[in-house]
């Protein structure tokens, strides 16, 4: 028995040893996992446990040149549900669908979807969100967020552009400067269980969002509004499809205003503007059709569409010819109403012809045969060289997306006929902004500037991060040619085809144009006017285009007065005071006078006094014969042609 026992004791001990060895093996395995693989697995486990919630960064603002905010943010909220945390499903569905005005079906679908977090609605205004928050429903999350807000609704809509649901720029400056404006989203890292429920007391890892930088632009709200008003007025009057106005500083390329009416409301960019609403009222559109229409509505024709510039392009031909010295101001020409080029008669716009005229007269009259002749003197090859130095063969480099380039014949295809038509602005296409840029170079002493809006980038604290600089090329034309051109264009407005743009007290230069839209003989025109002021030292250059005016369509008649109207407001705004010549004071009754006393006078007596002064409109208010009150008061100094109000009793 004893012997037997000792054997089995040894055996048992052997087994114990084996088991201890196995256990040691497992301990080694544990050490391997818990020491050497700890970090790797722990990281992967953490990835599994962590839920990331992003905090949207506030998008940078866009300011105009006077510091007004033209693109702002307003706080909104995103409502979402966490499936696992919902306690009273039906209550959640009914209250959300009621407050958010969504169909119960939509809400139910999202509430019942098994996901960690499901968005019900974003861009909910703060009041509505507070209403939901106050209900204190389990599983309903209200996250603060920002939404782009444009205080001026449709001001410069096609320039500014708008943002999408993730605050990303969709068109316009919002796209171009997206990387500066967007900022960096922050995030909250929380621990969550396998069922997606966040653990309350777990330490949150929070990465603060960095707000976007602000963009300071050269756009000027006041000038934009002046231009927009004038554009709207003429669009209505002429029942035009569209009216565009660009105002730019020709010296440095800063764009003050870029109007394209009809504009659209930036705060609801997916809704049709008024014009489209009227047009497509009662018409059901497929979403594809609607998209196409919206894209047209958003399109900025000043930079994205090309057109035949017509007579305004004579500025370019003239500058090239003067620069090339193939024409002098005193050269004589004869216009019989057409010019024979090779086997074709190309007509002048004046049927009978302008007869004998100097080069200066040729510009004033906008005479086609003169420019055909001048163009021919320069020659196709040299002309194309000038197009190149004038920046017409390249994009302007404006800081907006979607810019188009000019469409021109290949040089080797340019024969006499093509050259002749190009000389007065036909048979090729450029964008309005390209024309404006070239014209700027011709009148500013020869510097080819880059048209732009962006001036400066500042961070949220207001520190300048980047001053935007743009390329300029000097000596596109000589100073001398530039001076001559300014003089010539001032003459066009003073007593030439552009005289309707004449503004007493200011020296304005300009050139009219009437381009027939393609296909020819369609009866559709673009009336345009290119103007700048003051003529001797241009501070602002304007290009106005009226697309498809109904009735009279001559640029000189239709477009020129609109530019005068805009400049009349813009020039004083820019600090350029009118300086009247004696003749102007006489002709336009410029000056001021003192208001006489009307009180106590009878209506007939008042009328007598009025006739001796320079009043414009007289308003009588009230029934009776005796003047009780007057406005302006007696003794006040007012401009001639002021109105007068008399209160009778």
């Amino acid at each position: 028995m004893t012997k037997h026992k000792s054997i089995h004791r040894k055996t048992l001990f052997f087994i114990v040893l084996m088991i201890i060895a196995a256990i040691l093996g497992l301990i080694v395995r544990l050490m391997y996992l818990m020491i050497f693989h700890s970090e790797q697995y722990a990281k992967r486990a953490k990835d599994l446990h962590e839920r990331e919630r992003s905090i949207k960064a506030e998008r940078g603002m866009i300011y105009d040149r006077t510091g007004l905010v033209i693109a702002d943010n307003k706080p909104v909220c995103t409502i979402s549900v966490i499936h696992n945390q919902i306690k009273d499903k039906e209550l959640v569905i009914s209250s959300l669908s009621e407050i958010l005005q969504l169909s119960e079906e939509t809400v139910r679908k999202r509430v019942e979807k098994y996901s960690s977090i499901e968005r019900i609605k974003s861009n909910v205004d703060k009041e509505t969100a507070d209403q939901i928050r106050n209900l204190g429903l389990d599983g309903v999350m209200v996250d603060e967020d920002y939404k782009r807000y444009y205080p001026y609704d449709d001001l410069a809509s096609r320039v500014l552009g708008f943002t999408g649901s993730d605050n990303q720029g969709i068109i316009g400056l919002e796209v171009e400067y997206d990387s500066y404006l967007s900022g960096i989203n922050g995030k909250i890292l929380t621990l969550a269980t396998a069922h997606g429920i966040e653990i309350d007391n777990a330490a949150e890892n929070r990465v603060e969002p960095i707000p976007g930088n602000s963009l300071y632009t050269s756009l000027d709200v006041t000038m934009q509004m002046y231009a927009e008003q004038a554009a709207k007025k003429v669009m209505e009057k002429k029942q035009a499809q569209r009216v565009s106005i660009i105002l730019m500083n020709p010296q440095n390329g800063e764009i003050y205003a870029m109007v394209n009416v009809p504009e659209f409301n930036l705060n609801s960019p997916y809704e049709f503007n008024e014009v489209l609403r009227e047009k497509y009222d009662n018409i059901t559109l497929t979403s594809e059709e609607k998209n196409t229409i919206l894209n047209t509505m958003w399109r900025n024709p000043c930079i994205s569409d090309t057109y035949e510039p017509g007579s305004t392009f004579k500025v370019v031909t003239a500058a090239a010819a003067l620069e090339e010295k193939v024409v002098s101001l005193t050269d004589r020409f004869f216009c019989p109403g057409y010019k024979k080029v090779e086997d074709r008669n190309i007509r002048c716009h004046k049927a009978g012809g302008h007869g004998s005229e100097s080069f200066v007269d040729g510009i004033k009259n906008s005479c086609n045969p003169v420019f055909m002749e001048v163009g021919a003197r320069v020659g196709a090859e040299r002309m194309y060289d000038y197009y190149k130095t004038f920046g017409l063969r390249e994009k302007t480099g404006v800081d907006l997306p979607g810019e188009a380039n000019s469409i021109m014949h290949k040089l080797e295809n340019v024969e006499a006929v093509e050259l002749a038509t190009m000389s007065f602005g036909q048979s090729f296409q450029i964008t309005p902004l390209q024309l404006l840029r070239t014209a700027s170079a011709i009148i500013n002493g020869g510097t080819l500037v880059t048209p732009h809006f962006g001036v400066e980038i500042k961070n949220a604290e207001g520190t300048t991060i980047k001053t935007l600089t743009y390329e300029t090329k000097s000596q596109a034309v000589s100073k001398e040619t530039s001076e001559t051109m300014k003089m010539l264009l001032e003459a066009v407005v003073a007593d030439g085809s552009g005289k309707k743009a004449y503004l007493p007290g200011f020296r304005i230069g300009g050139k009219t144009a009437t381009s027939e839209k393609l296909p020819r003989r369609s009866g559709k025109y673009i009336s345009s006017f290119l103007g700048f002021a003051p003529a001797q030292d241009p501070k602002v250059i304007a290009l106005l285009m009226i697309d498809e005016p109904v009735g009279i369509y001559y640029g000189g008649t239709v477009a020129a007065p609109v530019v005068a109207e805009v400049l009349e407001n813009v020039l004083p705004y820019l600090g350029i005071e009118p300086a009247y010549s004696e003749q102007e004071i006489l002709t336009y009754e410029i000056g001021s006078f003192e208001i006489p006393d009307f009180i106590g006078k009878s209506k007939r007596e008042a009328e007598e006094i009025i006739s001796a002064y320079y009043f414009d409109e007289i308003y009588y208010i009230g029934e009776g014969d005796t003047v009780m009150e007057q406005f302006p008061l007696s003794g006040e100094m007012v401009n001639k042609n002021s109105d007068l109000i008399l209160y009778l009793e």
Partner: protein
Amino acid sequence: MESGKKRKKKKYYDYSLLFLILFLSCFGLVMIYSTSSYNAAKYYGDAMKYLKRQALFLVMGIPIMLFVSKINYHFYIKKFPLFRVKPINILYFLCLVLQAVVLFSGSEAGGSQRWIEIGDIRFQPSEVTKICVVLFCSFMVQAAPRRLDNVKGFLRVGFYTLPLIGLVVVENFSTALIICAIMFVICFVASRKKGYFIIFGILAAVAGGILIFGVSYRSDRIDAWLNVETHPKGFQTLQSLYAIASGGLFGKGLGQSMQKLGFIPEAHNDMIFSIICEELGLFGAISVIMLFILLLWRIFSIAISAQDLFGSLIATGVFTQIAVQVLINIAVVTNTIPNTGIPLPFISYGGTSLLVLLAEMGIVLGVSNQIEYER
């Protein structure tokens, strides 16, 4: 033995083993509360549900263990005076019947039928079968220890144990493996000739291999084991590895496990050791393993100092069972071997399992209680 000496001899009782059992069970309660409270609160609205149930069984189990420890273990192999049957034989047939019942009408859990449900209590007959095999093999061997010196004796023991193993292996491979190990070790220890065990070891390995690779769901487990990162069925083991590894040296602190929050399904069951690693770290895990080594060491001591071969073999059997269960459980959670459901003794959740285990420890304590020593 002379009766004169008897007076000076004292009955021994292994209090350190008792203490270890109680300590491990209470530690188990703490870990069960830690691992189950989240799921219990989520699904039953009562964070203490699992803890209460386990505590109830522990409270019931301790008196049973103490009672069993006072029974002289020779009682099991003595015939009842009235019926002329030995309790061990009753147990043997009872186990056969229960195993058969569970095969045909048991309730399913995890793809295998292993449970008998009586009211609220779910009960796994294979737990009892383990005790039965310990007692039955010891009984067979002690009856004629010399027979084991050749293969025939071993085969005879095997022949009687086979029905039990056969009924278990159908649905519960790992328990069958434990039962085989118990039988094998008991015979191995008792035999004076060890040569043929090597041959049997090889044969068992081959048979095991065929079983493992032959049955589809097990073969799936092999794939999952080898490609734990990518295999869809490796999910649970991978989560266990995440838990273990993210524990690091000192762990996240008791109750701070992330993986128990639904990532490891039913973390209070077989995977509880991985949460111990996550919360208590490498040091905590090694401490728990040390406790098991101590427990095994006490059982080993009882085995070698038991009054007779029968007691010694019983202790050996229990020793084997606990050792193998601990080894397999830890090996599974560390993905050292393919996944198989073996609870960690005393710690994993399972009321009847704990009850049976405590009764078993009562038997071992009973063996210790028969040891006599001189004052």
